[in-house]
């Protein structure tokens, strides 16, 4: 069996289509649920990141607020005001005391604050006081060149946060700090006194950010309002253009999330704005958010696989259940094909196939019945044929003819003897010839001419005949020996009883589909009663008359159908006309089929 014919089998089709259907369904469902789960996990991760970034923002805020608080304390402190506003001091001791008190104030702020590297006051009069006494100014540094110093002067008394930078103002120290600086002025605001500086140890913040890991590779960075990076774990890579951050987009949004479009390396940015202009940005790698993505994917694929295998097994059995009765039916059909009609298919429960089986049973029954009918029809045909043959070789006709021949021979009418004997011979040859049922009208007319010739010779002037068959019908087929019984009847029952000469006329007519032959005599005719019973089957049992006619009628019906046959028209004392009707046919053995 080839692949294609196998593909056409119902079971294969059913299994294939259901497998495809299930496959698609499972694939779609698992892909959708995979992405749904992924989305859910992702949004969870996003929430987590946002929360984390917020917390860090709060931490930074608390640091900055602490620094701000210090600046407020210092800015409003009378000692500081006094110390910075004085151009000269009464004595060196007084100056030292004044400085000492400020130093103590600043020092007290540093107590238990390891995150603050220094708290300092830089006076415009050249004074410098630090909370850490060990600090000395770096002699090589010009204060006015430093950002935090200039920014504070430009901000006129507002606190300024400078991004992480190196603080070079102290000798031998180069710490990374975040600075809060603020210009100090006299209480009435008229006089600018100096700059206050708090340095927050940036490594504290750094440690805080560095430990933040968003997934495997995610991280956190901070930019200020101008887009400068305050903190970034890979700042060097960014400066050397080995890595890019989407700073423009970060600056565009205040708070929220966006995802960069970098394929499998897409990053999710979670932005949180701080009060002092910084933006804290959590960056996580999208494909990492779902940490067990692969296991998830694998389990979905695995589950789908198992489902599909189960589905295939089920669909296999289901389709087998459906196709099994059909296959069974098919095997019964094969039996019938072989000619076994004595079969009754058990009717399965499945409705469709059940109906099919029932219909099949009925059909087989019908066929059997028809076959039987055909057999009996054939039998009857054969029988009537035999009858026709018997009618033909009516022994009385043969005796009489032979008697006539003897008589003619005795009278030395040798010419007539030859004529009659040859006609008799032709008559028999024609009827026995080939044993075919159908003959052309020509043959049939030849036959009846021979017959009439013999009869005419016997009855001399008592019988005359005319045959007027049109040329167009000569070749049509008819059953053989249909004219003889009718002509015989016309002679024996019509003309023989009549006084005076009788005439038999045989003519033809044709319609579109049929041929009519009619045999007309001017004999005695029949009464109504006789006419009515003539063609009824009962009359067959009556000896003699009518048997041959009845046989012709039946054979015509058998061969050509019930609408064909004989019709009689008769008037008592005037004559009888017999119509023979059969279809036009040129085929030789149509009736056999």
């Amino acid at each position, binding site marked *: 069996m080839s692949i294609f014919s196998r593909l056409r089998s119902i079971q294969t089709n059913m*299994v294939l289509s259901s497998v495809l259907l299930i496959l698609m369904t499972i694939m779609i469902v698992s892909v959708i649920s995979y992405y749904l789960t992924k989305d859910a996990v992702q949004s969870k991760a996003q929430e987590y990141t946002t929360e984390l970034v917020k917390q860090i923002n709060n931490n930074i805020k608390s640091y900055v607020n602490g620094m701000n608080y210090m600046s407020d304390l210092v800015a409003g402190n009378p000692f500081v005001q006094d110390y910075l506003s004085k151009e000269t001091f009464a004595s060196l001791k007084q100056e030292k005391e004044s400085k000492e008190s400020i130093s103590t104030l600043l020092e007290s702020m540093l107590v238990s604050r390891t995150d603050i590297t220094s708290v300092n006051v830089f006076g415009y009069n050249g004074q410098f006081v630090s909370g850490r006494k060990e600090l000395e100014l770096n002699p090589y540094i010009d204060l006015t060149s430093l950002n935090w110093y200039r920014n504070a002067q430009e901000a006129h008394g507002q606190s300024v946060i400078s991004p992480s930078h190196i603080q070079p103002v102290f000798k031998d120290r180069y710490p990374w700090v975040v600075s809060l600086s603020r210009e100090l002025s006299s209480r009435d605001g008229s006089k600018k006194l100096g700059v206050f500086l708090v340095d927050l140890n940036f490594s504290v913040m750094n440690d805080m950010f560095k430990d933040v890991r968003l997934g495997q590779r995610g991280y956190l960075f901070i930019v200020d309002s101008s887009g400068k990076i305050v903190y970034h774990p890979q700042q060097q890579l960014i400066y050397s253009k080995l890595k890019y951050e989407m700073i423009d987009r970060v600056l565009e949004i205040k708070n929220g999330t966006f995802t960069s479009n970098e394929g499998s390396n897409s990053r999710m940015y979670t932005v949180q704005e701080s009060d002092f202009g910084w933006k804290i940005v959590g960056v996580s790698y999208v494909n990492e958010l779902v940490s067990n993505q692969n296991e998830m994917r694998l389990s979905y694929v695995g589950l789908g696989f198992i489902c599909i295998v189960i589905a295939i097994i089920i669909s296999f059995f289901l389709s087998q259940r459906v196709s099994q009765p059909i296959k069974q039916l098919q095997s019964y059909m094969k039996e019938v094909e072989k000619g076994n009609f004595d079969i009754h298919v058990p009717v399965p429960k499945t409705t469709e196939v059940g109906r099919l089986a029932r219909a099949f049973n009925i059909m087989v029954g019908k066929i059997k019945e028809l076959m039987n009918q055909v057999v009996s029809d054939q039998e009857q045909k054969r029988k009537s044929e035999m009858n026709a043959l018997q009618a033909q070789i009516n022994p009385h006709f043969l005796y009489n003819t032979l008697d006539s021949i003897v008589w003619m021979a005795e009278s030395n009418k040798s010419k007539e003897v030859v004529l009659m004997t040859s006609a008799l011979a032709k008559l028999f040859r024609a009827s026995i010839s080939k044993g075919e049922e159908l003959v052309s009208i020509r043959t049939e007319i030849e036959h009846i001419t021979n017959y009439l010739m013999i009869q005419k010779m016997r009855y001399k002037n008592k019988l005359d005949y005319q045959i007027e068959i049109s040329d167009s019908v000569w070749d049509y087929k008819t059953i053989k020996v249909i004219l003889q019984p009718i002509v015989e009847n016309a002679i024996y029952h019509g003309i023989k009883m009549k006084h005076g000469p009788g005439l038999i006329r045989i003519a033809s007519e044709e319609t579109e589909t049929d041929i009519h032959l009619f045999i007309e005599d001017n004999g005695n005719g029949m009464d109504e009663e006789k006419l009515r019973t003539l063609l009824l089957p009962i009359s067959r049992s009556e000896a003699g008359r009518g048997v041959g006619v009845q046989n012709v009628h039946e054979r015509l019906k058998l061969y050509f159908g019930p609408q064909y046959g004989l019709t009689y028209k008769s008037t008592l004392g005037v004559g009888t006309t017999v119509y023979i009707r059969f279809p036009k046919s040129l085929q030789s053995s149509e009736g056999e089929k």
Partner: protein
Amino acid sequence: MPWRHKWFIGAIIVLLVVVAGLVYWSEGFSNKKPLNVTVIIKSHDASIEFWQVLVDGVHEAAQEFDTKVEVWGARDETDVEGQIALVEKAIVNRPDAIVLAATDFDRLIPICNKVVAKGIKLIILDSGINSNIAQSIVSTDNFKAGQEAGQAMLQEIKGPAKIGILSYVKNAASHIDREKGARDVLSGLPYIEMLDTYFVEGSEQKAYLKAKEILQSNTEVLGIIGLNEPTSVGAGRAIRELGMKDKVKLIGFDSSVNEIKLLDEGVMKATVIQRPFQMGYLSVKTAVEAVRGKKIQKQIDTGSLVITKENMYEEENQKLLFPFVGK
């Protein structure tokens, strides 16, 4: 019948396998096994910031590219035998790649051949070997850096000068190239006389003594180039001590707090710094790419930068000059 079923089940299994394969393929094999990379640097001496920053970059890359990295270092930069032993040990562990900063130009060649012969990818970091077998060399273009130092020196000296070069160790490729670069710029000028290159055997103290000796014996010396951090700082100390910072122009390499101080004070006029973070980062990145079979560059220049007193506090330079290491 059974044969038909076999055909059928076979077809379905093939279909399933194809589908599963497609699903898996479309999502990619992101679950790659972490690679093992061994990084062997010249010195694990924690006082040299250069290596610390470099190792920072290594770890950063290890994190980003999901790689297991082990960082080993020789005792100090003169410990060639120690480093060879480390490479030997690394080969036994059979990592996917070895990243090596060679302490010696010649003596590490055999062991490097062995690394490559074992099918381990070899990436040279910072200083090379006199051989071409490494998959890639990630380093500062030291010749170019030397030229930059020479240019910086030319900016500082006006008029006739003698210029001496202090080199940390003999046979380190990086130092050889820097020296060549500097000489490429400075020699051949009629008003400049190049002195010998002095080797200080891997010691800042010896550099200091050597510089002092040079300064004292050649009163007219106007320029000193220190080829790395200890030589620069040593020379700086000598100049500072002798109070010759206006007369003697010192150009250094690399950066450290001590060098910053020298810059701040004006003792050192300029320093040529490398980008150790990039170096570390890129060496691991390149190693990973080499193992994964990607096309990699044979030579990766991480660049160098001339830092002077004027630009040292610029935002972009701060991070290079003042790394967060060890805090």
